[in-house]
């Protein structure tokens, strides 16, 4: 989905603040939120990591930007557990003594599962183009490479296809690749010659650049 999470290349953001000697967790609730996600994933198995990522992406955009990292975790986890029927929003709000904002519902059941290929379709050095696979569901192809041309620099392992797994459907494993794009191909005259960006992409995101 073309969501607020897909930040690569957006303008208007300011300085990056680095906190010296930053603790792993700043507050107790951050650690609990982290643990509740591990619980949902590994113990309750209520959802998979791809559904979790999609739930974060479905946060109200303004909430997404205003929330801290672990608040986003919490809202996504709470949303999934409500959607899956493990807890109810009413109970959470009664216990919390106030409103519990949740993610917006998914607007699609996701992509159909493509037939898995028998072998990797691309090799190192192949010229590829990123398909315009825009979807209102989950995907891991960032907007800024859509339609862009690059070169395969590494054939990586096969992994579950997020576009299917992110909607809780049975997903195929699919070949992934590291694809290198010239900065000038992505950002026109802003990109410095010689500088590049490497993006990790699933095979069905790519086509041969004829």
């Amino acid at each position, binding site marked *: 989905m073309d969501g607020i999470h897909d930040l*690569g290349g957006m303008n208007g953001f300011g300085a990056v603040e680095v906190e010296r000697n930053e603790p792993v967790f700043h507050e107790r609730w951050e650690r609990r939120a982290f643990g509740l996600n591990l619980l949902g994933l590994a113990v309750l198995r209520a959802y998979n990591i791809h559904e979790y990522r999609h739930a974060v992406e479905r946060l109200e955009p303004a909430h997404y930007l*205003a929330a801290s990292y672990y608040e986003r975790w919490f809202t996504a986890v709470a949303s999934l557990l409500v959607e899956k029927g493990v807890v109810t929003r009413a109970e959470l709000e009664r216990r919390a003594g106030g409103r519990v904002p949740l993610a917006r519902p998914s607007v699609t059941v996701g992509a159909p599962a493509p037939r898995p290929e028998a072998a990797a379709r691309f090799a190192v050095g192949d010229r590829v183009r990123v398909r315009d696979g825009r979807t209102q569901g989950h995907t891991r192809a960032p907007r800024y490479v859509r339609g862009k041309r690059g070169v395969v620099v590494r054939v990586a392992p096969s992994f579950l296809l997020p576009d299917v797994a992110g909607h809780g459907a049975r997903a195929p494993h699919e070949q992934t690749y*590291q694809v290198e794009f010239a900065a000038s191909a992505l950002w026109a005259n802003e990109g410095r010659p010689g500088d590049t960006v490497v993006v990790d992409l699933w095979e069905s995101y790519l086509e041969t650049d004829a």
Partner: protein
Amino acid sequence: MSDPRQPKTAAPIAARVDALEGALTDAGLVPEGYLDEATAPAEDALSPRNGARVVARAWTDPAYRARLLGDGARACAELGYGLPYEESIVILENTETVHHAIVCTQCSCTAWSLLGLPPDWYKSPEYRARLVREPRALLREMGLDLPESVRVKIWDTSGETRYMVLPLRPAGTEGWSEEQLAAIVTREAMIGVARVTVG
């Protein structure tokens, strides 16, 4: 119109987290002690000290360095790092002519086993938005001014493969032990936003 960022009636975040934990606990869905045990590695075993030890070994043992660049997972396993969260890892070697840096533009993926849970700056919208588009300006702001002669290569962790930068070994560390070297390797250097420096 209400501001969705600050819903007037939204409970404080700590109360919301307690509410979920309480609901799940009362439903018998949280094994005794689970939340403490499952999160303990985040403040212990998952640490950038692991990556620093891998870097120090690579700096002092050319054969290890070659193995690390060839098969990162196997070379990390040699030092006892099993990479339970990383099914695919690539070590990116900085040279005098190529500088690597890592980002995750869509969330905040990193190699937890080697770099620890990511710091807030890595997870910030500012870093995620800007690094792929204006790497030199952003790195300069963060204190890393790269010469024109160096090519910048940004790795967006958009899939399941994880990355760690093998920084340049600083001058003035000849004859140092692995332990001494590991002590000066920072998480920032292994993400690619800083150099390793002496003193």
